[in-house]
């Protein structure tokens, strides 16, 4: 009985104290590599779309003026390697500020929140998915249940700052992979274990892009699709 009790205490100390020390160390150790990425990542223009078509106006005196086409660009950054840091995530309303890593494998998630490699990077059109521990390894998403619609999530990558606004919070089963499905516009989906201290369900927070280097492109594309549909 004493041995079982001691093992249980050791287990809880390992999970709730030791792994959090490891998580904090990984976050600190990632900072130089992140700075290096910010300094060297080459930003490219992947695509452009016209925001407004050119218009020609004939003046009373017979002269004509033509407005030029205003274009929205979609900027991209190089795909990060698995396990490497590529940005930061901040959620001011719950005091979260963590380094983001590429990948959702077990070793990567021990370092901090991880981006699902088969979804777009944050700041890009589509549904960028980020997973994170709830109670162990730095517990980056410990307070995710306290978020409310309208709260902001700021993701910074080599591309710049992308600001998202929370639109919905749901609880799903761990196998509900549809939450990672492609979406129209630019979305950020955060996933974590639920309830606290259990991996029984997943807490999902979904937020829409409201500001950032690709916002004009995303919004223009959305308007075009809406016009095409009507």
């Amino acid at each position, binding site marked *: 009985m004493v041995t079982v009790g001691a093992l249980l205490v050791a287990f809880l100390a390992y999970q709730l104290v030791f792994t959090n020390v490891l998580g904090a160390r990984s976050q600190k150790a990632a900072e130089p590599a992140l700075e290096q990425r910010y300094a060297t990542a080459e930003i490219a223009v992947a695509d452009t779309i016209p925001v407004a078509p050119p218009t020609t106006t004939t003046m009373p005196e017979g002269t004509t003026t033509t407005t030029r086409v205003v274009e929205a660009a979609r900027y991209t950054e190089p795909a990060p390697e698995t396990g490497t840091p590529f940005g930061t995530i901040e959620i001011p309303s719950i005091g979260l500020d963590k380094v983001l890593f590429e990948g959702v494998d077990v070793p990567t998630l021990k370092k901090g929140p991880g981006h699902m490699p088969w979804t777009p990077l944050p700041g890009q059109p589509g549904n960028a998915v980020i997973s994170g*521990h709830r109670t162990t390894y730095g517990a980056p998403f410990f307070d995710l249940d306290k978020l409310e619609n309208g709260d902001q999530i700021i993701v910074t990558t080599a591309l710049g700052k992308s600001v998202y606004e929370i639109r919905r919070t749901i609880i799903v089963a761990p196998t509900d992979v549809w939450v*990672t499905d492609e979406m129209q516009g630019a979305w950020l989906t955060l996933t974590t274990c639920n309830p606290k201290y259990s991996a029984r369900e997943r807490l999902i927070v979904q937020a829409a892009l409201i500001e950032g280097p690709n916002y004009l492109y995303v919004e223009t594309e959305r308007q075009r699709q809406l016009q095409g549909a009507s």
Partner: protein
Amino acid sequence: MRRLYELLPGPPVVKVVLVVLIVLVALALLGVLFEWAGQFLDTGGTVAVLSYLP
């Protein structure tokens, strides 16, 4: 504990080395056990089809 120590073969130096080795192996096994059990507490929050879940 002392009786277990006495059961170890060889002179005292060998016994101490064996104790250190046993403790290290026990700690490693405990780490593996704790990591495995920790998956029931917090998997990292990712969603996946069943075969990819721990």
